[in-house]
């Protein structure tokens, strides 16, 4: 069989190349996640920041890195759900900083346990200004943990608004907790509980 005429080929080739080019264009959020992950690992591995004495300093650095990539306010909105609209800006002003501290704490608790796990980037899907980046974390015991980062595009940059580990969404987990509290008690109780939680000392770095 003769290969199709040259003139029939060029058009399809151009289109084909365009199709191939699409996923390359879509790689931005994954790059952002990669950068942040590398920064976090660099801080955790930093020999100057080891040991319990340096924990405060290390946590401060980790917090700075996380603040660059997380959209805490978006997370706050999502965890409050319908209650978000019910509150005045003043009430939100008390809630959001407390919530951010709690999120940072919860994220740091998870990150602290890092001990050389490998991170593989397995997928990315984008729909308008929203994106999901799938990651497989290979633990040192050979187990795979599937993690998805949900991201939102704002000001030409991508920010994380939810982390889903093995199907468990951080935002959904807090939403169910907040909802359970708010259906039984007033808003002030939630704020009080948040304050108490944030005041608790952080867990030490896990040993095993």
């Amino acid at each position: 069989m003769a290969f199709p005429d040259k003139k029939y080929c060029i058009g399809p080739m151009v289109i084909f190349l365009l199709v191939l080019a699409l996923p390359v264009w879509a790689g931005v959020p994954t790059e952002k996640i990669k950068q942040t992950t590398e920064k976090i690992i660099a801080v955790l591995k930093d020999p100057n920041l080891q040991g319990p004495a340096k924990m405060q300093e290390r946590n401060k650095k980790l917090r700075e890195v996380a603040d660059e990539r997380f959209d805490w306010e978006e997370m706050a909105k999502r965890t409050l759900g319908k209650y978000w609209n019910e509150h005045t800006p003043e009430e939100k002003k008390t809630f959001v900083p407390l919530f951010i501290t709690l999120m940072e704490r919860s994220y740091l608790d998870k990150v602290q346990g890092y001990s050389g796990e490998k991170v593989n980037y397995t997928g990315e899907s984008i729909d308008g200004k929203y994106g999901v980046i799938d990651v497989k974390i290979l633990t040192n015991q050979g187990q795979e943990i599937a993690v998805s980062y949900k991201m939102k595009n704002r000001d030409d940059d991508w920010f994380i608004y939810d982390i889903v580990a093995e199907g468990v969404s951080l935002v959904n987990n807090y939403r169910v907790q907040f909802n359970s509290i708010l259906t039984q008690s007033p808003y002030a109780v939630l704020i009080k509980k948040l304050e108490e939680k944030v005041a608790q000392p952080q867990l030490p770095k896990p040993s095993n």
Partner: protein
Amino acid sequence: MKSRTVILFIFCLWIWPVFFAVADENGRQRVLAADRIPDESAFFESREKDKERQESPGSYSENNHTTEAAQALSDFMALEEIPATTERLPYADDPWPDEISMAAIGQEDEEEVFVEEPIDTIADPLEPMNRAFFAVNDKLYFWFLKPVTKVYTKVTPKKARTGIRNFFYNLGFPVRFVNCLLQFKGEGAGMEFGRFLVNSTIGLGGVLDVATEGCQFKNYDEDFGQTLQFYGLGNGFYLDWPVFGPSSLTDSIGAAGDSFLDPLKYARIKSRNRTYARALKGVNGASFLLDEYEALKDSALDPYIALRDAYYQYRKKKVKE
């Protein structure tokens, strides 16, 4: 003509995302519409009423065009005109709304999107009992499981613990295999069979997970609880068992079913040794998870709810897979 076929093929390749986008948009519209459909029974009820009125013409004085049935029918057809009364969520435009089945996703005009807030969680009618058992388990964890596991972790090297975990996981093969078959997961059943063969022989009775590292055989963690949900049984409600921990009604039935496929049950060993083996399995498994429970407790406002929701979301993902 061959060349035309090539061009057509490549054109189709290029155009398919558009088709999908269109199909998807239609789907969303339909879901959106379905969500706003007034109760069908309203139509039938009002038709009954109309019939009654026609039978007693004395009370039937309105004109024929605006009977209640006609009204209900036009409500039923003119979906757009039904006002959505629920409030607007701050994240209503999110295409992946935390796995919640929110109907009005993807609407371009944000101002017109109104969605009910569906809290996605598991039913918990026995919450007081579950909370009591949660407290018991919490005490059991700090007074018994944690100290024992700490000592165990100190005296057992990580490699040995990994080996023991692999060994017990390999023994769970019948459960995974049978449940793959029950859910018509042919590939899963094949993979599990291959894993069992390789790991039981080359992997020294399951201690080494050669199948994952060497052969790239994926594990299929199926159990009877998932099988029951596969056949359409819901999760029932949440149950927090003393000692065994979080479960649901369906998963508890599933666990009872799976216990008949546990090789330890049929091993010809003394019942005392069987108990030791199970204790080893439990403590060894816990040695990998010790920090996770405390991290969950530390970051939660209500640890009971946090654990319940984590269990629910985790199982939901497992069923979906």
